[in-house]
């Protein structure tokens, strides 16, 4: 972090977020889904959108570790350990938020004893766990050298932690270093197919559903991979700038983000063009909700203006300025929740049978009335704050930046 003051401010904000968010968490734990504004016709809401948001954040870091340790692109090496750590934090947040969304979280063990082999969600759980294991190990092997060194430094704060994480290892030889980098490379190679399946699979959860005009189709898994790389790439670029790792690297990453943003906007245009030209009533109705519905400003102002047009301008016209690139990436990251909300909700917000809206009146049986309530926002805030705090403390107390220095030599 460039400035220690920023670090402290962010930690305080995260703690405030945790305290405020805990009201929503407690309410959810006490009353379950009753505490939400979800219903049977819009059964997936803000928490699923936040889940997808975190999913995206993991992808950029995934891209960096793959490029660094599989394809040996040296320029990304300094942010390799930071990237692996980011994946780990984001993926844990992803698991936490989606756990809140379950009606019976205590039955999560059912995934083990009654696996639904045909279910995309079952495989999502399998691959999420695989990603956590891969990145936890990768992160550890990238940091171990520095952990051992820090555990020996007398007077270093938190020495007990480094001793604990070193698992009693006091000497770190050159052979150990070579062995650890071999392990990191093996894990990165393994993470390539696992990660691609993981991101595509999350798209497939939606893509395979019948009668879901915006979700159903081969474009969705591809869109998921691109959107994930875009939001994740933007986050890594922002972090590279904030941690003052290398401004040249920020410029390089800025080009990548600009390319991904253009590809994403093109795919989104294709989705709208095909949807409107096909003119199926339910497809048009879903697209109309995005573009002209009660939350039209989420699409036009938050996503297209703040999250796309301004970043694109900054990335194109001011690509030489690391600060401008960082601002562009910051805007992309924070507005990406709008993209996720506009993916998750509009498709559900259209009644799938004519006359369904007039059959049985109850607020849990409406589509247009869903808007995340305070509890849903507070739980989301709690998870965001937890993730931010874990990331801030981890980046301060673990050698995620230090381990990246001179990393090019090992790639």
């Amino acid at each position: 972090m460039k400035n220690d003051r920023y670090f402290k401010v962010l930690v305080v904000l995260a703690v405030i977020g945790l305290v405020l968010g805990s009201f929503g968490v407690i309410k959810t734990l006490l009353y379950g889904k009753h505490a939400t504004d979800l219903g049977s016709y819009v059964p997936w809401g803000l928490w699923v959108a936040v889940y997808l948001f975190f999913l995206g954040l993991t992808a950029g870091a995934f891209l960096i570790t793959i490029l660094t340790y599989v394809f040996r692109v040296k320029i990304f090496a300094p942010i390799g350990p930071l990237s692996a750590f980011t994946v780990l934090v984001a993926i844990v947040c992803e698991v936490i938020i989606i756990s809140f969304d379950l009606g019976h979280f205590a039955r999560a063990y059912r995934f083990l004893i009654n696996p639904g082999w045909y279910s995309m969600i079952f495989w999502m759980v399998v691959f999420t766990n695989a990603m956590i294991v891969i990145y936890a190990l990768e992160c550890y092997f990238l940091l171990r050298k520095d952990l051992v060194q820090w555990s020996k430094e007398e007077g270093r704060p938190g020495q007990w932690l480094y001793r604990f994480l070193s698992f009693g290892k006091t000497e770190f030889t050159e052979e150990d270093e070579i062995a650890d980098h071999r392990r990191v490379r093996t894990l990165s190679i393994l993470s390539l197919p696992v990660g691609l399946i993981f991101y595509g699979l999350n798209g497939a959860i939606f893509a395979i559903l019948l009668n879901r005009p915006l979700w159903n189709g081969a474009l969705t898994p591809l869109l998921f991979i691109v959107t994930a790389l875009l939001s994740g790439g933007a986050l890594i670029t922002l972090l590279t700038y904030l941690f003052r790792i290398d401004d040249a690297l920020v410029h390089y990453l800025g080009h990548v983000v600009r390319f991904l943003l253009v590809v994403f906007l093109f795919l989104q245009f294709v989705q709208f063009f095909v949807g409107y030209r096909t003119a199926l009533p339910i497809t048009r109705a879903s697209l109309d909700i995005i573009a002209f519905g009660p939350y039209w400003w989420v699409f036009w102002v938050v996503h297209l203006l703040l999250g796309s047009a301004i970043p694109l301008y900054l990335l194109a016209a001011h690509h030489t300025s690391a600060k401008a690139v960082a601002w562009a990436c910051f805007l992309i990251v924070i507005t990406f929740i709008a993209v996720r909300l506009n993916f998750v909700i509009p498709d559900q917000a259209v009644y799938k049978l004519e006359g369904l809206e007039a059959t049985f009146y109850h607020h849990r049986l409406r589509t247009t009335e869903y808007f995340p309530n305070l509890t849903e926002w507070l739980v989301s805030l709690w998870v965001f704050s937890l993730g931010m705090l874990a990331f801030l403390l981890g980046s301060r107390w673990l050698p995620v930046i230090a381990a990246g220095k001179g990393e090019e030599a090992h790639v």
Partner: protein
Amino acid sequence: MSKDLPTEDLLIRMQRDLKRTQKKKPEEVRWGMVIDIAKCIGCHACTVACVAENKLPPGVVYRVVLEEEVGQYPAVRRRFVPRPCVHCQNPPCTKVCPVTATYKTEQGAVIVRYERCIGCRYCLVACPYAARTSDFREWYTANTPELEGRILGRQGAAKGYELHPAAEYGQKWPERNGGSPVGNARKCHFCLHRLQVGMLPACVTSCVGRATIFGDRTDPNSLVFEMLGSPRIFRLKEELGTQPSVYYLK
């Protein structure tokens, strides 16, 4: 005087069909339903009967009656389409369940194992007929004052009706709190608990127009089999290939 009535109520015929079905091996039975929309008067009695039979809480409904307007003024008509779970023979909802909590029985009914359901609601999203609802722990008596003594307060009122769930799937469920069926996906199950004891589903017996026909669609002597031969037969969203076990007569 003849023992047979000059005309027979369809319910008596279906009841007779059901008795015959009970003598068959379970794996030889395939439940089916035919709804004659020309006979449906839109009274919603089936919806109410289903809610009462299964003690459904607010926001949970298994069988709704859709009201459709056909044509344009002045040549406009209204028609009613009751929509239970259509019990697809190729159900999209069972395939998406990550813990195999929902499945198709060998008699063709799609049901939920409440004790296994984790409440991810993927099946709700996957159902093209919006036939599943989630139990969000709503109470009819939520706003009833908490009073004890002579006046029947919330506890008394709730205990009389909604505190004890119905014996769905022929099981006794615990008092409604956080456990199943709260938090679960819930759906029409063709009143399996009634079928087990030789009773027709509640929506069938409550239909004043006798628009809902139920029985074993593999039994050539059954009324439902007879109806399936009608040229008026159709199924909802046939193009999706879900092959519903609930048929309609135009």
